[in-house]
């Protein structure tokens, strides 16, 4: 079900996917955003009530001009949780969404019941620099994002409608809107000081990584593990950065078991 939510006296309008029933689960998407075909949300919906808001600047969500940095973004999610009457919830964040979920949990330790960070951004290791996705050639994206760039899934997710100029422009404008919003947290180096605050995270935390993640390699999972006291690392084989699309069954199983244990 798609909903539209007003927040902060109309400063924000939030487009949101709401699926399933059970304990609340807030999903924070990555820099690419939700694709419109995100079956892992349905899977999680079998056991949880899943809320997947589009960050302002993404999809039909508006009010991005009121978000300058990760603190503003974390407070936006706090407001949204209050509005949804789920002041505390399971937080699952992917990539940039992981970075923001970690901020949500660190700034107010009561917000996360449990936390799942999937291929999460937020740190920078000089010896393992994160590649510049903003400057990446379209042709190189499949190999960066997927374990198997030749798989039908990878090809489908990154297909461009080269012969439909109108659709192409619309997609391009949406991509620019999304990446432009993301640039506030990720440009030019995706580190906005999380390492100063991350020690506050008290919730049990699962650090879930695709084994062949080339965007944010698994060494970053170990870095998060060093700083979050109640955390453990789980890597999924034959999966890259887009782990929940590439290995949906195992992703769902591992996340659900962790959250329900």
């Amino acid at each position, binding site marked *: 079900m798609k909903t539209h939510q007003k927040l902060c006296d109309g400063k924000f309008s939030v487009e949101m996917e709401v699926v399933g029933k059970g304990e609340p689960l807030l999903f924070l998407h990555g820099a690419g955003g939700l694709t419109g075909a995100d079956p892992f949300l349905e899977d999680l919906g079998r056991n949880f009530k899943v809320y997947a808001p589009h960050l302002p600047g993404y999809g039909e969500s508006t009010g991005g001009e009121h978000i300058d940095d990760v603190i503003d973004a974390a407070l936006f999610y706090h407001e949204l949780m209050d509005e949804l009457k789920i002041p505390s919830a399971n937080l699952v964040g992917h990539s940039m969404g992981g970075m923001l979920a970690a901020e949500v949990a660190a700034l107010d330790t009561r917000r996360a019941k449990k936390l799942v960070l999937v291929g999460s951004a937020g740190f920078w290791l000089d010896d393992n620099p994160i590649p510049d996705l*903003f*400057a*990446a050639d379209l042709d190189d994206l499949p190999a960066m994002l997927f374990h198997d760039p030749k798989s039908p899934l990878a090809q489908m997710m990154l297909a461009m409608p080269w012969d439909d100029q109108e659709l192409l422009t619309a997609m391009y404008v949406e991509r620019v809107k999304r990446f432009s919003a993301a*640039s*506030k947290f990720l440009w030019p180096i995706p580190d906005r000081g999380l390492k100063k605050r991350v020690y506050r995270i008290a919730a049990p935390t699962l650090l879930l990584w695709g084994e062949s993640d080339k965007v944010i390699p698994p060494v970053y999972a170990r870095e998060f593990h060093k700083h979050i006291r109640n955390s453990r690392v789980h890597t999924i084989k034959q999966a890259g950065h887009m782990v929940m699309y590439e290995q949906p069954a195992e992703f769902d199983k591992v996340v659900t078991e962790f959250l329900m244990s």
Partner: protein
Amino acid sequence: MKFTWFHLMPYRFLPDDFKKKYHSVWVDIPRDLYDPKVGHRLYNDYLDQLEFADHMGFDGLGVNEHHQNAYGLMPSPNIMAAALTRRTRNANLVVLGNSIALYNPPVRVAEEFAMLDVLSGGRLVAGFPVGTSMDTNFCYGEVPATLREKYFEAHDLIIRAWKENDQFAFNGKFTKLRYVNLWPKPLQQPHPPIWIPGGGSVETWDFVADHDYQYSFLSFFGYKAGKKVADGYWNVMAKKGKELNPFSLGFAQVVAVAETDEQAERDYAKHMDYFYNRCLHVYPGFADAPGYRTPSTIKAGLTGQVGKNASITREGLTWKDFIDDGYVIAGSPATVRDRLREALKTLNCGHLMILQQIGSMPPELVRKSTDLFAREVMPHLRDLWPGFEDKWSPHRLPANEMAVPAPISFEPPITNGKTQRRGASEIRSSVK
């Protein structure tokens, strides 16, 4: 009609296989390709050329800012403008300009422009570009989403710093200063004329029109391609009820003059090719960071000058294509006169930014082309735009109030230890 002799200051010695072998001329070009000894020669050649243009009666000398590239070797155009203040007398110094969102705090630009204006006796044109995506987002790390907001704030701060006589506090989003109190202040009061170089962003036109600035469209694809942008600009001006004064539009055009049309091709073809295929070989991923252009500009269909489409368009172009498509206006003085007159009238342009050193062009050809243009083309175009007042050129000190550098003499030769200062003998021979 006014003419500014504009220098990009390219690195002239990129390898022949540059386009094939290297990723990009900008941002991540290998440092090995730059030889500072060659660089020393180039800077001095280029300053000679600008000084020659002053001597030949051009109205302005143009320089601009770019970073981490072989296309234009001026991270700080202010340094070049400063070097020009002492050995030029007549021409205006068109610094086009400083990317004001990159300076922290932006009063640095207000200070340096004020210094240049005072030093040059009021010959400065102050240019405020946003800057290319390569320069601002990739080389200087500015967040694309907030670049323009930061630019506008920097602009407001600089203008206030120039205009307000009393010190003030500035509480901006990006810059906070308790004491803004500019020393020195510009010689031109309240400030030098402001030109806004642009690549065709629709928002820039509103900004220029609302402030009565001059808009300089710095395209390298000639007047035929530039027509779309010029029309867009004039439409905005007309809608806002502004005078359609040709002097409020500057336009950059590559121009090469030789004795005959055939000689022009023999002289210049390979240097044009060097420019379009090596100097503009920019990796598309660096050309347009997401958020650098606004959605309205994207929807207006104004594609960038660099990047994939631009690069593909230029693939395999011949001299004839460069001429026919209007990228380059070249040929005998008569040919250049006719085509340039047509171009300027089509665009309604009163300030030409003329590019006569282009790509790998060596000094002797630059001199020939500039000399021929100044003698046999420029005088024939001066008559354009009678009845329009140029409100965008500097107001300098009267000649009798201009300071003149004291003559220098190297007799007897000054030595520094064992090594005689290089350049002394050349200066001696020219003094004779």
